[in-house]
């Protein structure tokens, strides 16, 4: 049965791509409605953030380069993956309750809403990655062919976050606390994942435990693709573990979503 769900879901995305596109445009435009600079904010925010990193860690704290890679680059590469993940998960969790008119008043495939969030978040993600590439260029670190591998890690992240989003978005219809819990988990996740700090400062046992965090696989993968040029199959065991966990989350997410969906219109 879940297999049908995925197949139907892919068909749904393909057949309603125009609707999804319109919704993504709305979602992106909604962030800047009424603001003067509009879309430019998508660039300003990450730009300022990276400038702060660069200033603080490059000049202020004089953070040590990791494997001859400036800290700010290492940080930005990991941050890109994390920001995109947390942005999607946060938004997608509340996207059903934020659109009651679509759930209650019209015939609408609710399951595509998290996909819309993924699409809308892609805009800022691309900007962030663009700034990362500029940063790499300014430090004379050559981009390799392995950059393309980031696409694999991106897709992996999307599958994971879709599973999580179906779960939390549908539960959030019943308990609005879910949004807060997700925020809390993201706070813990941000500091618990080796984004700001290097995993090698930890004892080997802790390192092994940290690798159970599926997001770290993505963060690490982004660094591999943009900086180190390491192919993903070199840690295939880790990849296998990631996909098992992701499959489990996806199954749980879709099962819960399918069970709860008929009640959305009644509860909202």
């Amino acid at each position, binding site marked *: 049965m879940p297999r049908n769900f995925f197949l139907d879901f892919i068909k749904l995305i393909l057949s309603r791509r125009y609707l999804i596109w319109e919704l993504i445009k709305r979602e992106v435009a909604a962030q800047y409605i009424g603001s003067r600079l509009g879309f430019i904010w998508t660039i300003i925010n990450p730009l300022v953030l990276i400038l702060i990193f660069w200033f603080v860690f490059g000049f202020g704290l004089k953070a040590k380069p990791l494997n001859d890679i400036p800290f700010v680059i290492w940080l930005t590469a990991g941050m890109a993956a994390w920001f995109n993940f947390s942005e999607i998960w946060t938004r997608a969790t509340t996207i059903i309750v934020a659109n009651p008119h679509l759930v209650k008043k*019209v015939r609408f495939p609710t399951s595509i809403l998290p996909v819309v969030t993924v699409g809308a978040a892609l805009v800022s993600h691309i900007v962030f990655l663009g700034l990362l590439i500029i940063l790499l260029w300014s430090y004379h670190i050559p981009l390799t062919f392995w950059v393309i591998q980031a696409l694999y890690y991106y897709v992996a992240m999307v599958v994971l976050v879709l599973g999580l989003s179906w779960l939390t978005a549908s539960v959030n219809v019943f308990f609005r606390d879910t949004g807060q819990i997700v925020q809390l988990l993201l706070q813990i996740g941000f500091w618990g994942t080796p984004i700001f700090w290097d995993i090698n400062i930890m004892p080997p046992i802790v390192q092994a435990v940290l690798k159970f965090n599926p997001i770290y696989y993505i963060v690490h993968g982004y660094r591999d693709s943009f900086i180190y040029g390491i192919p993903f199959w070199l840690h295939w065991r880790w990849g296998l573990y990631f996909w098992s966990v992701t499959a489990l989350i996806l199954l749980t997410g879709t099962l*819960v979503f399918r069970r709860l969906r*008929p009640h959305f*219109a009644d*509860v909202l």
Partner: protein
Amino acid sequence: MTSNSAILLKGIEKSYKLYHSPLARFKEALHPRKKKYFEDFYALKDINLEIPKGETWGIIGLNGSGKSTLLKIICGVIQADCGTMQVVGRIAALLELGSGFNQEYTGRQNVFFSGALADVSRSEMEKRFPEIEAFAEIGDFIDQPVKNYSSGMLMRLAFAVAVHVSPDILIVDEALAVGDARFQHKCMKKIKSFKGRSTLLLVTHDMNAVLTLCDHAVWLHEGSLIETGNPKEIVDRYTQAFYEGGPPETSIKTEDNLLVPPLPSVAKKAVTVKVEDTAASFGRGGVKIDQIALFSKERGPIEAVYGGEAVGFHLWLESLGDIKNPVVGFLVKNRLGIEIFGFNNISLRTELPPLRVGENYLVEFEFVWPLIAKDNYSISIAVADGNLESLVMHHWIHDVLTVEVLSLQEYQIGLVGVEQVQIELKLLDAEISFLN
């Protein structure tokens, strides 16, 4: 399912589960053995319907009878608990005012978004946009955010979009009530142009819309399907049941599995309105009007009457004193309080015998209800003593009864209808007319 039915419902049920908290609902949805955590409230019970393609059906019923729930199930907005449903084709639904519209976006943006929702491509919407814009008649407001619209404008735009995405099934829930008469007429015309091409489903309290637009009527009561059939018959029985306070308890099961209430007989004690002493009455009190009844010669007691229908109006009087020259009459006023028609025995040049103290009398008026505009009218009644020069009012009651007037004509201009009208267009030959 036969190939020419658009909507097929079998054993549709929807119970609104009265949960004590959202938690109970959540636990139940996820419970592995489907444990129940609620008390049932049936919004729809065992609904069986087959609506053929291209027909127009009207759903009538009191508030809370499950009409909107049924429409929402057909639209797929909410899901039935059990039963099977097959819907063939694309649905456009006007469930509520501007449903699916985003308040922050302009009319134009919302039109295109509605197109996306209805799965109509952008290029196709661009082709239809001028038509939609013209139909909605909201002028420059099309580029204003929808939140600045009046309810009439919102409705017009929503209606314009719904009818221009060329749906196979168009569902309209009481939406026609908004808008001025001219726009309503335009909507009716548009809806009529759909007849035969698309399937139409209307929920309305406007019996005239059912009579003039629908091929078939469905009567829902407390979640059950009471009867389906010819609009006029259903509307008659519905308005009558409404008058009696609900459909009859005793009903006959037919082969169609439809509940058909028995036809009421006029011989039964007429359905009457007991007249209470209220502030809206005045007079000396020498005579008291106890009760009144309005009924159709054919259909029995009624609350809704057709123009041109033979009706009777009865008044029961109780004489508390001697009345030498009784004058009994009534007056029908429209919603604005304008007196439309009325008569009493003086205007009818009929002298009534004196009333004696302590006796009860029945006054019967019989007439053909005039062709007046479809609307709600109120009847005021009076009993007096005397003649046109000097009259002593004994009992006058304002607006004792409200009557809905229905019309089989779908479009009538003005307050009064006219019978046997002929219209002819003649080409005048210039030469002959000059010679003549």
